[in-house]
Structure formats: C-alpha cells, structure tokens
C-alpha cells in the first residue's frame, strides 16, 4: 500500500494533491481499495448517527423494572403488572386460535362465545349502545352491558359480516388517549350474530368505549384499526 492512510483518505483529512493521489490509488490498487471499502460503511454510519446516539440515556434502575426480585426461571413466571404509568393490560397474545369460535383473551382469560349457540347476555347492567362506525351496506348493531362491579361484560352483536380466512372480531375497551385492552375475539358465522358474556380482567369503568374491530387473524394481537362498532361507556 502507498503512504496514504485509508482512514485519512476516507475522512478527507489530506491535502488536495494527496486526495487526488488517494483517488488514483483507490482506482488502481485493489488492496487500498478493499481497505477503503471496508471502512467506508463505518465512517458513513458514524457520520449519520443522530445526536441522541452519541449520548445514550441512562435507563431506569434495573431494580425498578420488576425483574430483579423474581427468582424463578422465566418460563415459569406469572405475569406481573409492572408498568404503573400505563395502567392497562397489553392486548391479548396468542391469537392463533382466532379462527376458532372461541377465542380467549390471553391476559384476562375472558370467555367469549359466538355464533348464536351461547349464553345470554345478562339482562341487567349498565347499557352501552354500539353503533356502526363503518359504512357497511348493512350496518351492524349491538349493545354491551357492563355488569356488576364492571368486571363482567355482555355483548350482543347483529348484522356483522361473516368472518372468512381466519379473520375474527375483536372486543376491546379503549380510551381516547389510545390505551386499550383486548377482551378476546369471536368468529361470526353466516347469521351475523353473536352473544358474548365474559368476565373481564380490568375495571371497565376505567375505559370510555367498548369497541368491536375486524381483525385479520394474522397473529398480531394489536388492534387492527378497523372498527365496526363502538359505544361510549357512560
């Protein structure tokens, strides 16, 4: 290799005549060229780093994140509520069973049954009228009842398009700030009707809306963003 340092060349810290010599060397010397090409992505990456990446923040203390005091193997661990600033459960996980008639919210174990051959919604409770938020030709309708100490919900759904290809309808409680919790899901058949009655793992009175969404059944536990019915909890 010549006397030109590949790093100096890449950094442009050479006199103009040396830079010209470096360019010529890069063109004709495979060893020099290989070294330059090897380091060039590193230099480029360094030049592109955002300011925050140069001074990485100090994370919260490990002891505060709810792991340090858990001694058992992680696979045996039970879920803990450790995110105090975000007092909702995460959306249910494990929705591979979404195609089934019965889908259980993995967090709360909410029991929901659809397709018409199910338990009846309790007649009492605080009523939440669910109205169509889409523009389906035959608008769906429904209502929900928040029962007892707001730890149980009954939902009656009608005129929903039947599910296909593993899709299902998700039942959610949500707030306008975007916090939400999945209560589970239900598969709707050709009759477009389902009655659900489920204990729920949260206090429903802490939420503003009952929401029914169409979920694609792709295994993603998050809200699809496609709501079909929604009602405000008074």
């Amino acid at each position, binding site marked *: 290799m010549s006397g030109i340092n590949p*790093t100096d060349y890449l*950094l442009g*810290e050479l006199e103009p005549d040396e830079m010209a010599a470096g360019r010529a060397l890069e063109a004709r010397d495979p060893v020099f*060229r*290989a070294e330059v*090409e*090897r*380091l060039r*992505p*590193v230099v*480029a*990456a*360094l030049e*592109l*780093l*955002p*300011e*925050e*990446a*140069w001074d*990485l*923040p100090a*994370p*919260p203390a*490990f002891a*505060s*994140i*709810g*792991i*340090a005091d*858990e001694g058992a*193997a*992680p*696979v*045996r*661990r039970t*879920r803990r509520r450790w*995110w105090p*600033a975000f007092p909702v459960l*995460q*959306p249910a996980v494990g929705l591979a069973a979404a195609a089934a008639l019965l889908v259980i919210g993995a967090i709360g174990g909410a029991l929901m049954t659809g397709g018409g051959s199910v338990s009846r919604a309790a007649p009492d409770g605080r009523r939440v009228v669910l109205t169509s*938020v*889409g*523009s*389906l030709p035959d608008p769906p309708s429904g209502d929900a009842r928040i029962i007892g100490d707001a730890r149980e919900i009954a939902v009656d759904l009608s005129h929903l398009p039947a599910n296909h290809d593993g899709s299902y309808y998700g039942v959610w409680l949500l*707030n306008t*700030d*975007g916090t*939400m919790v999945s209560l589970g899901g239900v598969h709707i058949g050709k009759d477009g009707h389902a009655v659900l009655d489920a204990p729920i793992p949260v206090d429903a009175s802490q939420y503003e809306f009952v929401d029914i*969404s*169409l979920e*694609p059944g*792709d295994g993603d536990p*998050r*809200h*699809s*963003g*496609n*709501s*079909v019915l929604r009602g405000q909890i008074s």
Partner: protein
Amino acid sequence: MNLACAIPLQSTTARAFGSAPRPARRSVGEPDPRRDDDRLMAGLQRGDAAAMEAIYARHAPAVLGFLSRVLGDRHAAEDVVQEVFVEAWRGGARFDPSRSGLSTWLFVIARSRAVDHLRRRIPEPRDASARGGPFEQEDPTSEIDGLIDQFRFAERMRSLPVEDARILKMRFHLGFTQSEIAAEIGMPLGTVKTKMNRSLARLRRAMDEDGDN
C-alpha cells in the same frame, strides 16, 4: 401486520455503500461483545436474574435511546423499555441464538413495542370498510428500521475504550479534525490516528459479526 418479523434488521448504511468482506481478526485482549452476549443469553435461558441484570446494563441504554427517539417522549420510552426487558426475561427460554444475536433480538422486541405504542396513541379506531386505515397510511414503522441500525451502531461503540470513543465523538459528532483532536486533548497526532484506525476496524468487525454488511 406483525411487522417486527416481516422486516429484517440490516444495516441500510452498510448496504448503501457495499462492503468488501474480509476475515475479521480480533486483537488479543480486545473485548468480544458477541461472546459476552452469548454467555449472558445462556444465563437468561436458565432464568438467571443476574444475567438479565447484566443484559439490561449492557443493552438498555441503546434500546432506551432508540425508543426515546422513536416515541419522542422520554417517560413513555422508559415505560416501553421496561416492557421490552420484561418480555425478554419472560421469553428468554425461547430465544434461539442461531437466528439472531441478543442485540438484534432485543431491538426486534423494542421495535414491536414501539410500533404498538405509536398505534395506541391513535385515539379513534376507524372505519372497517375503508381500505387502508390510518395505520397503513401513516405507517410509523417506515423510519424505525434506520433508527435501529443507528442505535445498534451506537451500542457497539460502548464496547470501545472510553478514550477511543471520545475521539470518535470529537471527530464525527463535534466536527474536530484529527489534528484538532490531538491539540485539544494533548495527544500526539500519530496516537490519535492509531486510535481512530483501531476504532474503525473494531466497529467494522462488530458489523461483520452482527451480519451488518
């Protein structure tokens, strides 16, 4: 959906400039972050809380930096970083080191939780009949992968000696030339250049080992 799995984590920077693969050789005494991660990951898979604490100490700053940048909210980022590491703790037994490194895995989790958080911010779910709801139209993931590359790179710099990292910062963040750095810190120019060469080579090796070509 399930974007975290759909989009591979690669260095777009490296792709843009191409690379000249070359066998990496680690200097005697040089830290080996990947090997350390493997050891810690084995501990995590055994349910060793001390290993988890070490993983947290090693990786949480970059993950938090990434989340702070993506979410634009330090407090929210701190909440989400906790979710990430608790998820890692609980899912450690399922981690497959043959598929990715520990850092890659943590950033996959962080990416997923960040997207989750961004989506939860949208207050009103929308029309089921409309094609391409706002989540699709305003895909919050479009710039996230580039940030992951950058913060993973920043994480690699943490394995450099403090003085070497300082020289990199002075050169690439503060805009000093090597000569100016030498004058500023009272170090011979040749030493600054040696450290610069060494740091770039180490970072390149780390990129190679992480498959970021």
